[in-house]
């Protein structure tokens, strides 16, 4: 998911850059008021872990691979502000030192891989925590679900940026179905790894998991853990269900490569006309027989992401006291 330099147009790079810088400064400001210095090395370790885990590309299906995003995991472990910053550090260091993802692509890479998964994932986590029992298993399950949702949101954010900043004539609908579809599967891997990692931390060091700060540490140790099989089957079921819902939306979009390559220039002309003054990239809306549906999908996805991220940030600011580490 690391996009290289020049992947989206300059305007989108600048706009996402501004959003990313703004959010990270907000997070830093929040942290400065509450920081317990012990959190810094913890964040460093979490960042190193995410960095290392991203080197594992796990196979998803026929030839595609995905890697851990880690934003939700970091947010649940460290608290959302520290989590967002830790993964931002990962993305920035990858770009500068390891040539992984472009320097001028940092705006959207940080947004998609750190900010959206961390805050959006944390928002989802808080929601799921309300629905699930207040136990170690409940925290694990909420982590897994939040991980899954965070990956899907990240893929959606990417597609929406494509709508504004496409540099190639591949339509939004194609990118959306491709990205979100594949990433629901990747999300299962994310869910399992995040939940297992949080489960392992809860089992031996429950005191450091910010997202479980409300639980009674002494009780967690005695609990029975969810078997992995149940967990994976559950995650797959949720992914399939959500995937089915999404594909219902996108079903009218062009499917398969040939159908798009076969489109005539006619639709493009018509569209250019319809979306004359639009801020959307011509490329991303070109070749669509139903651009309003695409825009509707983009709109819904956008609202979902903004709601989840906003909820995550709000929750984070509200329970600042929850940002803590071992004492």
């Amino acid at each position, binding site marked *: 998911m690391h996009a290289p330099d*020049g992947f989206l147009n*300059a305007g989108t790079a600048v706009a996402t850059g501004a959003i990313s810088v703004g959010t990270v400064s907000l997070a830093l400001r929040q942290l400065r008021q509450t920081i317990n*210095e012990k959190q810094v090395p913890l964040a460093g370790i979490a960042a190193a872990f995410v960095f290392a885990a991203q080197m594992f590309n796990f196979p998803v299906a026929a030839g595609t691979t995905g890697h851990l995003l880690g934003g939700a995991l970091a947010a649940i472990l460290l608290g959302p502000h520290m989590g967002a910053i830790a993964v931002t550090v990962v993305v920035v260091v990858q770009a500068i030192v390891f*040539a992984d993802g472009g320097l001028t692509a940092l705006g959207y890479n940080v947004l998609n891989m750190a900010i959206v998964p961390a805050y959006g994932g944390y928002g989802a986590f808080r929601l799921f925590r309300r629905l699930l029992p207040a136990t170690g298993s409940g925290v694990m399950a909420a982590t897994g679900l939040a991980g899954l949702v965070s990956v899907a949101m990240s893929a959606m954010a990417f597609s929406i940026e494509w709508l504004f900043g496409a540099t190639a004539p591949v339509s939004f609908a194609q990118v959306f179905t491709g990205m979100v579809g594949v990433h629901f599967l990747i999300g299962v891997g994310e869910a399992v790894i995040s939940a297992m990692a949080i489960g392992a931390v809860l089992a031996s060091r429950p005191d450091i998991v910010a997202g479980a700060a409300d639980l009674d540490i002494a009780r967690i140790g005695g609990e029975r853990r969810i078997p992995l099989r149940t967990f994976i089957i559950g995650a797959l079921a949720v992914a399939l269900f959500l995937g089915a819902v999404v594909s219902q939306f996108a079903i009218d979009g062009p499917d398969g490569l040939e159908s798009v390559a076969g489109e005539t*220039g006619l639709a493009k002309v018509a569209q250019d006309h319809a979306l004359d003054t639009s801020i959307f990239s011509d490329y991303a809306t070109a070749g669509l027989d139903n651009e309003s549906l695409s825009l509707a999908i983009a709109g819904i996805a956008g609202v979902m992401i903004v709601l989840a991220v906003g909820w995550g940030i709000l929750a984070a600011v509200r329970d600042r006291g929850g940002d803590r580490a071992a004492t």
Partner: protein
Amino acid sequence: MGAGHAHALYVHEHSLVHHLPPQVKVASAIAFVIIVATTPREDVWAFVAYGAAIGSVALFSRIELRFVLVRMLGILPFIAFASLLPFVASGEQVDVFGVAMSRSGLWAAWNVVAKASLGAATSIVLAATTEVPDILAGLNKLKVPALFTSIAGFMVRYLELMVEEIGRMRVAMASRGYDPRWIWQARPIAASTGALFIRSYERGERVYDAMLARGYTGEMPDLRRRDPSRRDWVVGSLLPASALIVALLARVIT
């Protein structure tokens, strides 16, 4: 998305570039990449000139071009992605060796390949001439908050240890016939991931204790004071300045 062994990044040499203060190099690299990324893709020859520019910086730093090229293999996934574009994209079709391709798809592919390669080459040269702690110190001087760079410092320090640990775990798994193909075979990865996490964390906690024991109060002492002179800045601006001239020339000519 592979990151190699941390030590393979830096090439020990004594060149002018190596000795530039890190903040100058980081600023110069960022400015250069911004100019590259904002150059319209139709200005083909400008990209050739940029390539020559970053190539000469590499030569000047006594880094072998082969080293840069090998490390650039990391962007292969994007090249693979880009090479699909001419086939996937819509719009006017052109005939290339008898295969129908989308004209704008070809341009888009060229755009991604050119900018991604130049961007990657720049990062590689920066990392080959500047050690990671120096890059972080440089970022700090460029007003990146200390909290950010200290997290990065901790991260980098632990990365190497963890990479070794993962390598060992991978070998251990492979030697017992574990070769994951499908997601439901991921159990050992997930399980060992949890163990790795705890191990690294507790290690970090001990290092942190060692730092506290020596009076650490949350801010790294600044041991690498080396304020850049005006000459350093001039040298550092050579790369972005020449790129800027190329970009402007390209605009005027085309």
